[in-house]
């Protein structure tokens, strides 16, 4: 059936959300600036890091950010630099920070997106299963699974998965992004990379499977008691259709929301999991930068990741509006 409202209205809604996001982005930049200004010692250290840098560069940074100027001017200069995309230079990596982070972002996104997909599918299936027979063995099992997911730290789960599947059973590689020794090409390379991704993905998705399971179960139980479900049964719809087309459609809304709003936790989780598995993404970069005291990289990651979270939240709002015709836009 055709939608009553055009894409124009949706565009306007998205634009409005976008405008709403601007102060948040500015807020994030201000927090970054505050971190730089409040850090103990010479603020130039926060901008350059503790990796040895040539003195000319140090002086240039001092001048660029006006470190001898009053705070408001420093803030404006900082904002200006960030908006121009200048996040500083990483001497430990011999690369501009923005370039470095964006380079690593791809692998992190691959991990996060496959995690979200996996967690959503498994969580929804488990949640539906549990909701079909509340208080049954299956339901109890799903509840136990959810509790474990909420409580087990993903980095520890990662270590345990390595212990069992890599060290113990030898089925999967213990870490890395691809096999270094063998030089796979074509499909073999894809399979090789996929094998490296399985364990990190499992470790990272456990918590979100648990969240999705619990949420699916709860919203489905509520929805399936509603009048319109009764009515669709009275129209002769099969239980399967009632569940998938009516029940889950309604349950999808909270699921979309929770995935969107938990994105910043997935970010943290992936940093930890990447560290466990030596997955060369942003998280691993963060871990390494702590040891090299490469502050501009850390600040750059905070900035980019925060903006990514803001964008994901924005997309969540739009997706919600697409899914629920009652949202006015």
């Amino acid at each position, binding site marked *: *059936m055709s939608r*009553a409202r055009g894409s124009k209205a949706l565009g306007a809604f998205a634009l409005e959300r976008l405008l709403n996001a601007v102060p948040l982005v500015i807020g994030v930049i201000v927090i970054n600036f505050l971190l730089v200004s409040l850090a103990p010692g010479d603020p130039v250290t926060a901008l350059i890091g503790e990796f040895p840098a040539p003195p000319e560069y140090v002086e240039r940074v001092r001048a660029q950010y006006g470190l001898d100027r009053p705070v408001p001017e420093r803030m404006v200069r900082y904002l200006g630099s960030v908006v121009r995309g200048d996040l500083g230079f990483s001497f430990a990596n011999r690369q501009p920070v923005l370039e470095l982070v964006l380079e690593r972002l791809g692998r992190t996104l691959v991990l996060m997106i496959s995690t979200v997909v996996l967690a959503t599918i498994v969580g929804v299936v488990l949640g539906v299963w549990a909701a079909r027979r509340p208080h049954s063995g299956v339901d109890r099992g799903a509840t136990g699974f959810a509790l474990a997911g909420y409580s087990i730290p993903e980095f520890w789960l990662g270590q345990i998965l390595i212990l069992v599947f890599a060290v113990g059973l030898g089925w999967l590689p213990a870490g890395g992004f691809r096999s270094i020794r063998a030089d796979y090409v074509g499909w073999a390379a894809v399979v090789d990379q996929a094998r490296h991704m399985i364990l990190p993905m499992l470790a990272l998705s456990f918590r979100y499977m648990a969240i999705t399971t619990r949420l699916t179960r709860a919203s489905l139980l509520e929805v399936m008691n509603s009048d319109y479900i*009764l*009515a*669709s*049964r*009275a129209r*002769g719809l099969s239980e399967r259709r009632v569940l998938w087309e009516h029940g889950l459609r309604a349950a999808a809304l909270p699921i979309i929301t929770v995935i969107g709003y938990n994105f910043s936790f997935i970010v943290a989780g992936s940093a930890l999991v990447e560290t466990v598995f030596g997955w060369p993404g942003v998280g691993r970069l963060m871990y390494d930068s702590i040891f090299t005291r490469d502050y501009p990289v850390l600040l750059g990651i905070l900035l980019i990741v925060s903006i990514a979270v803001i964008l994901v939240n924005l997309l969540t709002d739009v997706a919600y509006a697409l899914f*629920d*015709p009652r949202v006015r836009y």
Partner: protein
Amino acid sequence: MSRAGAPPAAAPTAGETVLELRDLTTEIRSVRGLVRPVDAVSLRVRAGEVVGLVGESGSGKSMTAFSVMRLFPTKAARLVSGEVRLRGRDLVPLPQEAMRAVRGREVGMIFQDPASYLNPVLSVGRQLEQQLQAHAMGRGARARIAELLRDVGLASEIAGRYPHELSGGQAQRVGIASALACRPALVIADEPTTALDVTIQAQVLRLMARLQREGGVAMLLITHDLGVVAEVCDHVYVMYAGRIVEEAPVASLFAAPQHPYTQGLLAGVLDLIEPKPIEVAIHGSVPDLASPPPGCRFHPRCPHVMDVCRRETPPHFEVGDARAACWLHDGAPGAEATA
């Protein structure tokens, strides 16, 4: 009008019994014990006829309707005995899948609050389409939906709308379209106008009556409103605390009600919506179904109560063309006890 999909059963002939309930009993396990909101209910609806089912709130009218569909708003409810004969075939022994094929196809249902009985996130057209598909009438659904919407006085563009974009009257028209979508033999309407504005109520009622007449379907109309009964029903059943207490053709019921409860209703002392005692001495309202009074369930409120009423359940006595479950008619001239 082209009919797509499953071969329809032959249209009921006028006067054929479409629905017959025999001693239908439904129980609900509740925290206060076992409740029987439908207790040995028998009734009959013929083709082309509108049969009213009236009674106070909580008397079991909706539960009777749900028992016909064998579809309950709570898992605690269960049909325990009796027969539900639809055009002669008993539905009670049917397995779930066969029952599903009956719902929405042979029996259409119209609910009280139209908005809450439509899924808010699916368009009206999609919901009607699902129903047609469920009964193998998916081919040509679009045209059929447009036709249905036209029949209930809505523009075909309504198909693309979502429930929250409809007015109450429009939503109930969609409800009626859904009930009639697969040309059922029987339509059960559970207080179809109660939730609507007064001005809209009359329109919707007239629409239902017209469609019912044109399609020759049988209709079981559940209502609080005696005015509605007088206007559109041919025959009436009066329900009290899970039981049928009186049954009569509309004219007879209004001219000469036989059961003290019906008499109270018509005298206006017993308001269906806010029950009030008939006399000051007769207090209380609808009895608690978890522990109903023994004997005649109406006895705590009845102005004519006798000793026997407190001890024994009155059977149905035939009084002229009516039947009433009341001891007053025991041995009265022309009265005859049935079941």
